[in-house]
């Protein structure tokens, strides 16, 4: 048997492979790989491409359902929305690149996720972003926020896809590793979905888009490695996004697809040309032969290694049907894109690369994909936090200060400073967005009465305290946010952001969070159709809070029958649906007012969640209610205050009969909705008939946010606190 040389092993270790992985490669090949081949292995077997630490656990997700056309495994998930149409979506992280170069890192994250969606034949129609930054007082945070937000806007605005929703958290746990998760949602005809598997041998492999440079070489392996103080030095050349090129690429790709020339197609994302051609040939069980001299190159003297590992942006790889290359050329020329036929599919089951007339790589495809490592990493059961009894949690001494503290804390304060930098209206189909006062963004399905509702959710402090319950909660909150606008939740994508999986306690978080998410997905008929895993989010051994972000899509049959929380009127009664026990464990009240981050998070009763949500959705679709807000961070206080601010009307809450007013008002019990209605009796009857607990908790009117005798805060003051934090933080002089 071939032994690995020490030089070969050193090169493998430097490229991010483990010693036993290298030994396995040598065994499979029965020889040592050359440098190009090693590069190909290193990216295909990276965590980012192979999911080697998470694969067996991801298998626990429910991924099918009557509407699911394509679950995980393609560039994006595809779900039927009736009338021959499908919604196509996925979420992806660009955490490390955004930490290194916030503007370009975030911009290229948006570009990358859009390509995953239009590669499937869908026109992107909505973008979302889920952001986690370090503590606002950390010296790097402000620059990162400014750069990331400008980058997301700079890219999405230019391409012309509205950014309609998102979430933003701040916590010192992200000081050294911010999270930038971007989601794209697209629309396609359900019989015109495009896939990546090469259907046959002998077909031309066509490269189109921007030229290849030395950008981001080893980005994929980098995204799979822990940060240390050295990572400055091993920084790859940063990828720069060209949103104009992306816009042209979308139009050209969709036109090429419509022309009938495409047999298979795949974007070049992380690990660029390597992963796209290996996956296309591998999935199609064919082979591929490329002539690298034909690759459009931006720089001189590029090596085969550099071309195969480059992460230059805005590039696509298509396998065309026989005789259709001229169609491609005409379209690429119209849109001013570089393009070239760089190879053919073969029947050898191998990837063969030629450069300057020599074969520089000749590998069997099977080991690259099928034999990629699949680890069962050891994990330990997370330590559970004790349940907190509200009787033992102090109530505020100054209620007004407590309310203002929660409403102006970085996690709850208005993110207007962020979303006003995003074009939310381009495509002229946005009916709810970050600005309008609704729990989810809603875009119309162009030319129809249907609407798509979109949201992204995760409460990392719950996942930290209890990964299983926190995982459930992330899914349930997304489901609830879609329901609160009246949409039927249909499927999710996810972005699992964690620390180093080689540490058993981190692996325990991953395993339990996935299991909790999977349970919620099953109970709510909410399959996972795509997703992304980002591990090794650690700096010098300190891991991020576990952050399994859920991106979810719901369907409105008639977008006119929807709800928001910006139209409550004087005289409306406020009803609270769901059970309020006063859960203060891991709540914002505890953290922001008492400086404590402990206690079991609120449990999610999935049966009640579903029952309550189904009632709310029915009431909205019947037109019985129009003003709905789910309860989440900050409990009833935050929900009622947000409703008051969005509707520009005072709100009075009655907490006099609660055993513990602070637990009632700030508790974060799950599965609850706040409704404002002029006809409460009918709604109460319906709730009782449906078996949903309902209580009258106040009314709208006046110009203050009040809970007598505890506090009375003029709306203007509340608004200043809520709106003021972020501009005050971002715009103060350097």
């Amino acid at each position, binding site marked *: 048997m071939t032994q690995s040389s020490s030089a070969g092993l050193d090169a493998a270790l430097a490229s991010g492979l483990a010693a036993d992985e290298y030994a396995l490669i040598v065994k499979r090949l029965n020889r040592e790989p050359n440098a190009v081949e090693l590069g190909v292995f290193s990216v295909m077997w990276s965590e980012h491409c192979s999911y080697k630490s998470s694969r067996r656990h991801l298998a626990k997700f429910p991924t099918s359902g009557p509407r699911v056309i394509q679950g995980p495994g393609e560039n994006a998930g595809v779900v039927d929305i009736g009338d021959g149409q499908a919604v196509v979506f996925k979420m992806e992280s660009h955490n490390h690149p955004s930490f290194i170069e916030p503007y370009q890192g975030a911009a290229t994250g948006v570009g990358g996720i859009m390509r995953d969606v239009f590669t499937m034949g869908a026109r992107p129609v909505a973008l979302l972003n889920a952001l986690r930054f370090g503590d606002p007082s950390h010296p790097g945070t402000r620059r990162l926020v400014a750069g990331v937000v400008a980058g997301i806007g700079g890219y999405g605005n230019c391409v012309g896809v509205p950014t309609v929703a998102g979430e933003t958290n701040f916590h010192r746990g992200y000081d050294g590793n911010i999270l930038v998760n971007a989601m794209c949602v697209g629309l396609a005809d359900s019989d015109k979905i495009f896939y990546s598997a090469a259907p046959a041998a002998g077909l031309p492999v066509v490269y189109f888009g921007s030229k290849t*440079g030395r*950008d981001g070489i080893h980005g994929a392996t980098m995204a799979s490695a822990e940060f240390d103080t050295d990572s400055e030095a091993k*920084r790859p050349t*940063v*990828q*720069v996004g060209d949103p104009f090129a992306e816009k042209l690429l979308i139009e050209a790709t969709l036109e090429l697809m419509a022309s009938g020339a495409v047999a298979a197609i795949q974007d070049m994302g992380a690990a660029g040309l390597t992963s796209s051609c290996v996956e296309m040939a591998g999935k199609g069980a064919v082979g591929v032969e490329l002539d690298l001299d034909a690759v459009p190159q*931006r*720089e001189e003297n590029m090596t085969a290694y550099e071309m195969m590992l480059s992460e230059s942006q805005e590039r696509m790889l298509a396998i065309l049907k026989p005789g259709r290359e001229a169609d491609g050329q005409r379209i690429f020329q119209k849109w*001013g894109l570089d393009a070239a036929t760089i190879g053919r599919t073969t029947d050898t089951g191998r990837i063969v690369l030629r450069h300057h007339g020599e074969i520089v790589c000749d590998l069997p495809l099977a080991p690259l994909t099928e034999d990629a490592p699949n680890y069962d990493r050891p994990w330990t059961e997370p330590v559970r936090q004790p349940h907190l009894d509200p009787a033992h949690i102090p109530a505020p001494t100054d209620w007004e200060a407590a309310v203002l503290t929660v409403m102006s804390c970085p996690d709850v304060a208005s993110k207007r400073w962020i979303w006003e930098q995003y074009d939310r209206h381009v495509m002229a189909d946005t009916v709810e967005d970050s600005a309008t006062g609704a729990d989810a963004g809603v875009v119309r399905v162009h030319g129809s009465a249907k609407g798509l509702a979109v949201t992204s959710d995760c409460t990392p402090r719950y996942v930290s305290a209890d990964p299983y319950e926190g995982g459930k909660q992330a899914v349930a909150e997304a489901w609830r946010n879609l329901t609160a606008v009246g949409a039927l939740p249909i499927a999710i994508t996810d972005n699992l952001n964690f620390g180093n999986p080689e540490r058993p306690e981190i692996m325990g978080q991953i395993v339990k969070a996935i299991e909790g998410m999977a349970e919620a997905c099953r109970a709510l008929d909410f399959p996972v159709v795509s997703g992304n895993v980002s591990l090794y989010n650690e700096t010098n051994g300190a891991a991020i809070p576990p952050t399994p972000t859920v991106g979810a899509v719901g369907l409105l049959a008639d977008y006119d029958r929807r709800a928001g929380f910006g139209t409550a009127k004087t005289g409306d009664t406020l009803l609270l649906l769901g059970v309020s026990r006063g859960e203060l464990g891991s709540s914002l009240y505890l953290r922001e007012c008492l400086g404590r981050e402990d206690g079991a998070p609120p449990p999610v009763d999935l049966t009640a969640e579903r029952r309550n949500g189904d009632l709310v959705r029915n009431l909205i679709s019947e037109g019985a209610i129009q003003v709905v807000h789910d309860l989440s961070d900050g409990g009833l206080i935050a929900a009622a205050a947000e409703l008051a601010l969005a509707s520009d009307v005072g709100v009075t809450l009655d907490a006099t009969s609660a055993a513990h007013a602070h637990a009632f008002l700030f508790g974060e019990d799950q599965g609850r909705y706040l409704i404002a209605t002029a006809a409460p009796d009918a709604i109460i009857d319906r709730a009782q008939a449906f078996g949903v607990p309902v209580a009258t908790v106040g009314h709208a009117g006046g110009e203050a946010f009040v809970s007598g005798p505890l506090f009375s805060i003029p709306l203007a003051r509340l608004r200043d606190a809520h709106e003021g934090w972020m501009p005050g933080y971002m715009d103060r002089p350097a």
Partner: protein
Amino acid sequence: MKAVVHVFLKPGVLDVQGKAVQSALHGLGWGDVDHVRVGRVIEFDLAGEDAADGKARVEAMCQRLLANPVIEGYRVEIAP
């Protein structure tokens, strides 16, 4: 003293502006134009008379603010 700072993308970093300007100039008939690069220039006055000291201060400004050292390089000139 007067400082002039030129900031350009580092070699190898995609210069989308340069690319766009080059193709526009070609489209307008100036086909011989090549290697277009677009950068920023920042000019300002600063106190003092000592050019070497001025240069050191402006370089510190470049590091902190005027250039993005991850992707950009800069050149500082000081004139009396």
